[in-house]
């Protein structure tokens, strides 16, 4: 804050302080930091642009690129010196289908209807239906757009369940081939990954998008932290106060501000407040900017939030895939999931529904070939009875589960959870091991999926159900297409790009 603005405290800020006294000063402290500034407090604008984008991950750069393509002047500010956000550390997977040129080139049949049916089913009760409708309709165009920006896809398919370490660009990135989804929609591989080795598709994606942004005249300023939105007296968002080298600067946005600041997994207070289940897990997955800044700025101008307790909670049992012949049981020895689901679903079940405790039970044939960093052995025994005693499962319960599983697995069936035949085998060869899947000891990578409520044009929706003029948000600063349980890689990055672009397109058509 500059001295001059300190003399002109807004009545709004005073109001927030008063509320703080009523509702808990600690909770309000964060909100007051992000409280909006009135335009009358801004004596001069340090810079002006049409579209001001806060954050340089996939959502922000997609918004910036689309803004330029619509003829807007675009300024992106990024808190860190190195742009790219969490997207640049991700796998770079984009969930696309309906017969993309890559799917066709690799001779996979797909339809928009099948993609849509899968995403609706996988999204569960929280699936944002209208967003999924629009996303699926735009899928083919989105692939073409990515290629036009210079993203390179290899004409190579991988049948691995996980993002390949080889530079393959198409794979089954979710639970498409897994019960019950394989019966709901015709499966197709929809994980589109920029060609890159060792799971660095996110870096390749962001290198391409950032290079395209540079070519197309997007102005990018790094080392600049957005602090507060600037609003007109009627509530319209017209800019942001940012900090650069210890100085506050005022940036005017003629067409709108896009919050593309990411999620909040690295803000311990916010995480504990909204998603304590995720706070308990390790590691917290994301680059250092996932601090919830944009979500808080949006809240401070009256934005609504959705699904703040939800997250991506990946508990990767595979690779190797043969360990999925084992079974996952809870603290009472009961199976609760088909083990061959996308690994985000297993994590979700353990973290949210099994009290944070579970075990992977394997025999000598389904064991890992070597000690693995992800999991530690809770117990090992020569019989299932001894194993269940060692991990304090009620007597006979695990034995019963294994007997039931083995009896049907020998016939290639899993009547309880319908695990695929490829992963069915009786557990019968000692030693038996129980791997600890508890939140304390297992590797469970988490990030947040909750955030600002937005409409199909990525406009932030206020607490009263109306869009806030001039304010857009995209990516993990919003509650978008990915919902919990997270069942498919690429729905987050895909959502970032799709709604980042929608924000810019809307802003280009509507002056604030």
């Amino acid at each position, binding site marked *: 804050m500059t001295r001059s603005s300190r003399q002109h405290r807004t009545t709004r800020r005073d109001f927030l302080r008063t509320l703080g006294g009523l509702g808990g000063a600690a909770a309000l402290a964060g909100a007051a930091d992000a409280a909006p500034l009135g335009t009358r407090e801004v004596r001069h604008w340090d810079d002006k642009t049409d579209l001001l984008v806060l954050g340089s991950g996939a959502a922000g750069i997609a918004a910036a690129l689309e803004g330029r393509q619509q003829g807007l002047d675009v300024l992106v500010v990024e808190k*860190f010196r190195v742009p790219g956000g969490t997207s640049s550390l991700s796998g770079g997977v984009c969930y696309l289908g309906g017969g993309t040129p890559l799917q066709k080139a690799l001779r996979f049949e797909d339809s928009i209807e099948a993609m849509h049916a899968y995403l609706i089913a996988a999204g569960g009760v929280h699936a944002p239906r209208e967003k999924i409708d629009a996303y699926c309709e735009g899928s083919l165009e989105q692939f073409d757009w990515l290629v036009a920006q210079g993203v390179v896809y290899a004409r190579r398919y991988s049948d691995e369940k996980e993002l390949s370490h080889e530079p393959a660009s198409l794979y089954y990135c979710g639970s498409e081939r897994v019960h019950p989804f394989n019966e709901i929609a015709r499966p197709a591989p929809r994980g589109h990954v920029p060609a890159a080795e*060792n799971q*660095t598709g996110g870096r390749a994606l962001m290198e391409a998008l950032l290079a395209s942004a540079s070519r197309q005249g997007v102005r990018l300023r790094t080392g600049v932290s957005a602090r507060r939105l600037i609003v007109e007296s009627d509530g319209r968002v017209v800019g942001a106060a940012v900090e650069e080298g210890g100085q506050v600067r005022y940036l005017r946005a003629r067409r709108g501000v896009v919050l593309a600041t990411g999620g909040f997994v690295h803000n311990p207070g916010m995480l504990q407040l909204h998603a304590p289940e995720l706070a308990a897990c*390790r590691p917290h997955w994301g680059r*250092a*900017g996932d601090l919830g800044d944009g979500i808080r700025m949006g809240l401070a101008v009256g934005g609504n939030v959705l699904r703040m307790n939800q997250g991506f909670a990946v508990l990767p049992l595979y690779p190797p895939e043969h360990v999925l012949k084992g079974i996952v049981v809870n603290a009472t020895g009961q199976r609760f999931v088909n083990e061959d689901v996308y690994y985000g679903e297993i994590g979700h079940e353990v973290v949210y529904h099994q009290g944070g405790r579970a075990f992977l039970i394997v025999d000598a044939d389904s064991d890992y070939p070597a000690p693995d960093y992800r999991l530690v052995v809770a117990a090992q025994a020569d019989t299932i009875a001894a194993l269940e005693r060692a991990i304090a499962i009620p007597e006979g319960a695990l034995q019963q589960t294994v007997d039931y599983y083995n009896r049907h697995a020998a016939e290639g069936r899993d009547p309880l959870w319908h695990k695929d035949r490829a992963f069915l085998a009786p557990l019968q060869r000692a030693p038996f091991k129980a791997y600890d899947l508890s939140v304390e000891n297992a590797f469970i*990578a988490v990030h947040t999926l909750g955030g600002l409520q937005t409409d199909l044009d990525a406009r932030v929706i206020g607490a009263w159900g109306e869009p806030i003029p001039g304010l857009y948000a995209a990516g993990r600063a919003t509650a978008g297409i990915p919902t919990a349980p997270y069942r498919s890689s690429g729905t987050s990055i895909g959502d970032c790009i799709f709604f980042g672009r929608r924000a810019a397109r809307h802003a280009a058509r509507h002056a604030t």
Partner: protein
Amino acid sequence: MRAMTAATKTVWGLALAAIAGLVLAPSAKAQDIKGDPARGRQVFAACRTCHYPEKGFGHHNGPSLYGIFGRKSGTQPGFRYYSEMLKRAQFVWTPELLDAWLANPDMLPESTMVFVGLPDAQDRADLIAYLAQFRD
């Protein structure tokens, strides 16, 4: 990669001074803390966003950390993403240096390693003990 500016040279100089200060006069507290590699497995988990410590796993978003201690910074064959700072710095990685960086990520602001830092000294000691296991 853009060329190193005077400003970044200054920042790097300050960072090195900070590192040197820590190395020459480590606090008694930091030295007394014994790392637990078993605990370090979970502390290190966040680093796996970008780094493999295992032999033969190769580079990820960041360089392989196999045998990191005693190696010269910014010199891993096959890794093309070092910041100019790290490439030019050419210091030898020690547990003390890593501890200093993990405690203060802003020390190397131009680094492509953008992480939240580990404020807890025991966490850092555990991580370093874990990482030290991965060597010939």
